[in-house]
């Protein structure tokens, strides 16, 4: 009886629309978390710590909202018997996307706790790294949206994700080389600290790429 009720809701009810809206909102939050982090880091590099902290708490809120939304989507997919054939893929996709928001939260919280000293000659590189990561996340959310609506465009976005992730890797390496070759940094620990943050930020692009990798497989599975 329960199955019947759920089946009919899935077939004719408003659940499908609600689910579609929730997925759209979730993707917006993922993108938003990366944009907020970019803004937060820029404020940090400009020495505006108070504003940085404000943005950091925004990132926390976004991450929390995304988590709740993801749980709701999961519940709807299973309880209402929607897309039984690809719900496993959709859930895995959302869970991998969750790593992106987690990472954004993680980076902002480490900046807040450790207060790393970013030398001015590295400032532009960190900005560029952060901008590139945001581009990677933006592109991956476009790829996921395409998976739901315009399957044939997934590949195009996935290729861009790979491109931007590669760019992020190069900037990360550039920062590390600059840090370890620079004359003006007296303590070795500060060099290591810079390397650590460059790697941490770059991991956001890595997480986005992990989503893209899954997506290419799911897109093949979904093609008729």
């Amino acid at each position: 009886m329960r199955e019947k009720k759920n089946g009919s809701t899935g077939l004719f009810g408003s659940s499908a629309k609600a689910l579609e809206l929730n997925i759209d909102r979730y993707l917006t939050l993922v993108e938003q978390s990366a944009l907020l982090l970019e803004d937060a880091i820029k404020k940090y590099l400009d020495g505006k710590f108070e504003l940085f902290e404000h943005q950091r708490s925004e990132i926390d809120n976004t991450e929390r909202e995304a988590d709740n939304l993801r749980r709701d989507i999961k519940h709807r997919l299973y309880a209402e018997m929607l897309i039984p054939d690809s719900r496993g893929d959709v859930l895995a996709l959302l869970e991998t996307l969750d790593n992106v928001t987690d990472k954004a939260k993680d980076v902002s919280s480490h900046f807040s706790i450790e207060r790393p000293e970013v030398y001015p000659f590295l400032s532009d590189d960190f900005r560029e790294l952060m901008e590139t990561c945001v581009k990677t996340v933006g592109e991956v959310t476009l790829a996921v949206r395409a998976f739901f609506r315009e399957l044939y465009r997934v590949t195009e976005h996935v290729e861009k994700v790979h491109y931007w992730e590669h760019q992020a890797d190069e900037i990360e390496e550039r920062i590390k080389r600059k840090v370890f070759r620079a004359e003006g940094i007296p303590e070795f620990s500060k060099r290591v600290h810079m390397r650590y943050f460059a790697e941490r930020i770059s991991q956001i692009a890595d997480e986005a790429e992990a989503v893209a990798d899954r997506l290419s497989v799911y897109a093949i599975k979904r093609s008729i």
Partner: protein
Amino acid sequence: MEIAGLIFLTSGLYMGWSLGANDAANIFGTAVGTRMVRFRTAAVICAIFITLGAVISGAGAAGGLGALGAVNALPGSFVVSACAALTVTFMTRAGLPVSTTQAIVGGIIGWNLFSGYPTDRDALTTIVGTWFYGPLLGALIAFLLYFLVKTILERLNIHLIHLDRYTRIGLILAGVFGAYSLGANNMANVVGVFVAASPFRDMSVAGVQITGAHQLFAVGGIAASVGVATYSRRVMMTVGSHLYKLSPVSAFIVIASTATVLFLFASEGLEAWLQARGLPSFPLVPVSQSQAAVGSIIGISLARGGRNLNLKLLRNIVLGWAATPAAAAALSYIALFFMQNVFMQQVYV
């Protein structure tokens, strides 16, 4: 109707049961296996529309089968039907490809050989021709449907969640058509050999004339419905999850294409329409549903550029063309001999 008549009908009832148990799974296997459609929905649709197809449109293909050899004594019909059923059962157990259509044709040829009635060569050529054209037509229709569906999906950009809903509706509609066509075309395999020796008499209910043949087709439909209710769930789960894994949209294409093939070879209305316009019409004979389905699956693989094309499926079809009728004919000939000489029953007039 006499008790003997009922007993002799049992082999037909078994064939009907087997049609419901196995062939209904070809219609709703993927839909139920992937949980897109509930089993109960699938079963009710199958039961209703197989019976409707059989009663409304079953006579055409049965006539085509009758032209091959009109088994004219009930004990003979019993033997032919039972031997076809046994061949299907044994070959399925042995893991060999099998089609009810080909088994019943073999059974009838066995009866023709035993009774000395000539096998109508034209009818035989037509029927054997459809074994070839059925899968080919299935492949062609599926090939075209694939591009049609693909174009529509690319143009409309339907969200995955909504596409799911439309796919379910599509699977149900295609299932309705599939079940109707199955009843219209393949019920001939179940009751075709009983038509000339039908134990049912014409009768009138509330002023509506119901012929003996209609009653026979209705009984076949009921037997198929019992098969659907009692056994098809297991087969559906196997088809949906193991045998050939299809995406729900591909499954829709396969069902619609298979149903179209069966319909083309069963519809008297379409035949009359085509003939009235001087166009070549499709012969009304039973065609193998599973082979039309395999043809459709091959059509989709070809549309995708030949990826994952399983040539073993093709080999299995060709094997079925030869092995099934030969085995059924031999079995039927031997069984008719025993029926006549050991059980002292008249197997032909």
